[in-house]
């Protein structure tokens, strides 16, 4: 019963200038995408502190998506390049520790790519769904953080 009804919770960090506008375009163009994502708008993908991602996973999301402008298109010129290095090291490190690589995903989505945004969200949701709920270092609910399983029950 629970297996069937379980839906992953995915946190999406979208950069203000491209991906957030891309998501907006997907919305205004009435393009469908899974409702599993919760969006947080950030100034730039270079703003993402890897702590945000880890903290999100700890606090009960099953996957994280970070999305920013394409290389060369950054509003702040080099923010996404810096972010790219941080993401690369974080991703390798998490896999090394034993957390599935599919849980933390990165993408470039421009303001004109509403269709791509919906495709990325679909892909990420599919992958996280396959991986199942994250149990590895999630806080139990009695610490004050609601686990997504409980909510879905």
């Amino acid at each position, binding site marked *: 019963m629970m297996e069937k009804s379980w839906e992953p919770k995915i946190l999406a960090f979208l950069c203000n200038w491209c991906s957030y506008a891309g998501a907006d375009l997907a919305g205004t163009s009435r393009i469908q995408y899974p409702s599993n994502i919760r969006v947080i708008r950030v100034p730039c993908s270079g703003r993402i502190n890897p702590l945000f991602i880890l903290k999100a996973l700890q606090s009960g999301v099953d996957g994280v998506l970070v999305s920013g402008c394409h290389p060369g298109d950054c509003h702040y010129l080099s923010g996404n*390049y810096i972010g*790219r*290095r941080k993401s*690369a*090291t*974080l991703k390798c490190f998490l896999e090394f520790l034993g957390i599935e690589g599919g849980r933390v995903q*990165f993408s470039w989505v421009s303001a004109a790519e509403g269709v791509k945004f919906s495709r990325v969200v679909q892909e*990420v949701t599919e992958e996280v769904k396959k991986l199942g709920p994250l149990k590895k270092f999630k806080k139990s609910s009695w*610490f004050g953080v609601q686990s997504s399983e409980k909510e879905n029950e």
Partner: protein
Amino acid sequence: MIQQKLREIAKELLMKKEVDLIIGFGEGTLPLRATPIFVRDPEEAERIIWNSFCENNLATYLHKFDRFKVGLIVKGCDARSVVALNLEKRFKNNPPFLIGVPCQRMVDRRKVKKAVKGEILKVLEEDDRIIVEGEGFQVILKRDDFLYPSCQVCTHRTPVQANVLVDQPVEELPLVESHPDMDQFESKSLEERWKFFENEASRCIRCYACREACPMCYCRECFVDSSRPKWIEKGLSPSDLTFYHMVRAYHQSGRCSGCGSCERACPMEIRLNYLTQKLNRDAKELFGFEVGINPDGPPPLSTFETEDKQDFIK
């Protein structure tokens, strides 16, 4: 002899007032231990010692003496930490004067303690042997069998940027890309790796000795101490322990010289080195950066190349 030469150099530097103080090692209060000492008086230079138990990374103390001109006694790994700190612009006014010791590699006191029964009262070193004495026993151990794991794989024993070297450079191990322990760990499954990591972290008592021993952990407010935002709870729940160890290690990416001080400082003998070793390996593979070798050029995570790897990005 290295020890004598260190004392002479320290004395001379202090007499000429080229430095305000020398940070080096002195005799510890227990056998198998050397303690960091801070020498300001030329006469006191006689307290400086050098043996196989000078395991701390003295670069840690540079933050506490940043208003002084410091003479620092460094091993290969310590010197690389200083270079890494310099890249992060830690010594704008007073770059330390490095007295480099080509490192003979340090002996793991815990391994020695485990190898003998009874309390160790006295330890002597002779060439490649360690003579351990206690009440009613005397054991002779082969020095090379008791080295720290981080020292066994060290490829930069001679300090890179030292102002003076007290001895001839030692022969370095060839740079090996693959490290047997690491390869073995990486060949395990995700679940096994996580289990190992979680099991190690579960022993943590959150004393933060690993942080204090590390020269690269110099933030005024560490993420564990910050209450707004509160990144991490104060308890010992498995979730918090793994979170702490993940983030502590991740903060070292592209900065760790692999000295192993964190692991040596840990009272619970938690394996910590493999985490930063992995990050160092990644920094090399992804960005071609090796910590503490190149004295100029920004740290890898504060710069970029347009051609960086991005096949993981959708």
